[in-house]
């Protein structure tokens, strides 16, 4: 192959992959999504109540905090770091909010601001040690795990503090419904989901046009349409179900906004791309002029912020703060990232993957609770699934590397 001639060889206008090949490829690439679908199907067969309106609603309310944590954790993991302190930060920020609102009688927003402020302080603290001093995040956050848990206990005087009530409580338990009426179901919920589906289809279409413009291989037409239809059907079916319950949960809107914002942040901003660069090869990033310390610092600050958001969401859901709140949540978030395809050595991982990973964890926990699986069995199953998911992912990746190479 010569390097200098063939420079102007025209490329074909639209490179559309062969359908069969494409299905195989995308099955490989989206192994985690398939796993999610399988898990959902398995539980809906084992326990028909799983897909009931009230359970689906409950699922969203109950596990929102894992997804929020997973967003920040994914960034930390892609950076080739880890944060073990987020569970303790949930307890601390929840405690702060409770002290402000419940004990101090301040309005709900004062509690929220105070909790977010403390979360940012936590992030600044840990970011300083990791980015400026250069201590590995594992050690810093191991310390943080103890420090913030202790502070939460001191703040709450070893007792739980409740109830929040009012708007604060509604953050995690409120619904938007009845805006457009409806008979036995909520039209508003359906409208919002319909808008979301149209938006999704439009963005996929735009992306496809972009790919064609840049002469990349695109999905064949039937596969592209099929994907849109499947997504639309699943989303609308989900909307139909929850609209028969209590309508659109507030927390679902909050979640959607966060997922979109962080998806954009990681995929489309210089900051996000630099996180990938640092996690992939810190030396190369440094020599290319990436501000490694700066990016590391703000990633940890952001993790503190998101842990505070999760703390608010969780304490609102519980309608109170407990000294032991959030115990072990860091592991759920970390597991969500790894199930979602993040690499343990950094540089690889997607927000979408972490969200699906979090959903898998949520569905499994919820499904097992519904089925009345005993307490001890649940963590065993979760642990096995984490191990197998990551092993499967590795195997899958190796195989596709051989195929592609």
């Amino acid at each position, binding site marked *: 192959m010569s*390097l200098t001639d063939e420079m102007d060889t025209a490329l074909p206008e639209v490179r559309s992959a062969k359908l069969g090949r494409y299905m195989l490829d995308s099955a490989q690439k989206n192994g985690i999504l398939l796993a999610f679908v399988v898990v959902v199907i398995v539980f809906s067969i084992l326990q028909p109540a799983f897909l009931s309106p009230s359970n689906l609603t409950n699922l969203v309310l109950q596990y929102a905090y894992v997804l929020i944590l997973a967003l920040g954790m994914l960034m930390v993991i892609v950076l080739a770091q880890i944060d073990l302190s987020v569970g303790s930060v949930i307890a601390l920020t929840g405690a702060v909010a409770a002290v402000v609102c419940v004990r101090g009688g301040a309005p709900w927003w004062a509690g929220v601001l105070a909790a977010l402020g403390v979360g940012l302080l936590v992030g600044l603290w840990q970011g300083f040690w990791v980015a400026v001093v250069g201590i590995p995040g594992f050690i810093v956050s191991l310390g943080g795990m103890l420090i913030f848990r202790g502070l939460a206990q001191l703040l709450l005087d070893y007792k739980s503090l409740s109830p929040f009530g009012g708007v604060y409580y509604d953050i995690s338990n409120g619904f938007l419904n009845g805006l457009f009426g409806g008979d036995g179901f909520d039209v508003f919920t359906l409208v919002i989901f319909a808008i979301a589906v149209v938006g999704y289809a439009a963005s996929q279409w735009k992306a496809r046009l972009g790919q064609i413009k840049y002469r990349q291989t695109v999905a064949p037409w039937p596969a592209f349409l099929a994907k849109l239809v499947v997504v639309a059907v699943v989303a609308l079916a989900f909307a139909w179900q929850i609209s028969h319950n209590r309508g659109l949960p507030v927390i679902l809107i909050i979640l959607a906004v966060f997922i979109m914002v962080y998806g954009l942040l990681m995929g489309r901003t210089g900051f996000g*791309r630099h996180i990938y660069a640092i996690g992939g090869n810190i030396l*190369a990033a440094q*020599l*290319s002029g990436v*501000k490694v310390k700066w990016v590391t610092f703000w990633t940890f600050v952001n993790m503190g912020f998101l842990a505070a958001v999760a703390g608010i969401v969780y304490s609102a859901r519980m309608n109170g703060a407990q000294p032991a709140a959030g115990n072990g949540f860091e592991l759920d978030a970390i597991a969500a990232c790894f199930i979602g395809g993040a690499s343990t050595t950094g540089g690889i991982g997607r927000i979408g993957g972490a969200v699906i990973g979090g959903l898998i964890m949520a569905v499994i926990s919820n499904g097992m609770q519904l089925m009345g699986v005993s307490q001890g069995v649940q963590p065993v199953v979760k642990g096995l699934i984490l191990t197998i998911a990551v092993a499967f992912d590795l195997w899958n990746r190796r195989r596709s590397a051989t195929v592609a*190479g």
Partner: protein
Amino acid sequence: MATWAGREDPSAPTELLRLTGVSKSFGPVSVLRGIDLTVHRGEVMVLLGENGAGKSTLIKLIAGIHRLDSGSIQFDGVPVQFHSVAQGEAAGIATIHQELNNVPQLSVAENILLGRLPSRAGFVTPGAIRRRARQALARVGLSDLDVDQPVGRLGVAHQQLIEIAHALDVEAKLLILDEPTAALTAEEISALFAIMVDLRSRGVGMIFISHHLDEVARVGDRVAVLRDGDLIDVVPADTDQARLVRMMVGRDIADQYPRHRQTDGESEVLLDVEHLCQGKRLLDICLRARAGEVVGLAGLVGAGRTELLRAIFGADHYDTGVVQVCGRRLASGRLRQGIREGLGLVPEDRKSQGLVAQASVRENIGYATLASTAHAGFVDRAGQAGRAEAVARRLRVRMRDVDQPVADLSGGNQQKVVFARWALAGSQVLLLDEPTRGVDVGARVEIYEFINDITAAGATVVMASSDLPEVLGMSDRIVVMNSGRIVGEIPADQATSDQVMALAVRDVESPEASGGANPPEVSGETDRAQAPNHGDPIKDGGNR
């Protein structure tokens, strides 16, 4: 942005960079002492020196990666002290670093623009990224490359070209190239030199580091020679090679390719590869190497040389075929079995495959012999240290002591450490993939002498190299690979670089478009092999 000070205003001063009394130490080790050096606009300043002489350290001082201990730097007429790479780039200094510095997981396009991703309202603009990446790639002759694939999928040479593109994307006044040619084949080197000539005509100043002396006269204007942290002299680029070598190493080197040939083609077959196939990468490879023989593997990048060596060694699986070492058949992908039967591999990319960067020189040298020399499961520490010390001295590894982490060694010295590991392991069949990449002239001769010694003792060496003079000068037999096949075999004493290149570039898929269809590239290589250096590989071979 594309205005070149030198061209805009002919009366502008031609001086671009001036170093005055620049010194640098790492802890107690003084690496550079009182360097005074000037680089002009439109000038290529070649930096020569042995491994560890301080070349990379000097350019890192200029680029803003290390801080000066004393002295001063004047760039573009103003005194500067950059505190980061970004500042240096903003002032107009672009650097291609010695080691590959890609982020393997990121796309080609993002790697090229890393540190300066174009964005609008805070969001990166994929369209602009692709466009600029394509522009930069077109300049290095890779306009067909898919810019969205992750860099980690590409071979070393392509990765090197991507780094060159990364630097060319900056409209630099000063371009620093630290051994950019080490990972490239003749063709790509010619393309790079064409780029350099173009930049020179536009008034860009360049600092160029290489261990290939024939490249000095091809692109250089002046040569600065460093030895042990001191600037020995600055001389014109057409200074004869013997003198340059003497200035570099402080002694004469009579023969750059001192091969002692001794085979008569009748000795025992140590390595026997039959009908080896691996996907589309290796197609029906048959190869034999006899005791006392050096088999050179020539070919272009992507011809399958690395893949072949890795498959033989057991680092990768193959689909069909047989590999026998010393008469014993090896199973596919069984690396440990291979080592036990006497195989050794010096890999192509020392950083990701050859070395544990944070471990000491002693440990790195000892990994392959850790198990075999252990007593009752305990590592023979004293013995390992002694042996490592001896080999390291023999190969002239420049280090504080054997306990220094290899990450702190200069690039060429790291390569010697990888080599030393297998030297110590006493392999009967030594597979070398670019064994002297980045190694200086003096140390290269040490490595060649080592090859002579082990072949004289009855071992065999299979050496893949893109350095054609090396293949011609050190092999007994040259096997040429092309697109995963073996396309020819030439006894080294009859081979010429034209012959080898003609086989290597021939389009094997369609034999019509064959042979010297690409005369420009071939002639680039001819220059290199037949430059008037003493120790002309071909003649030497004939004399013995």
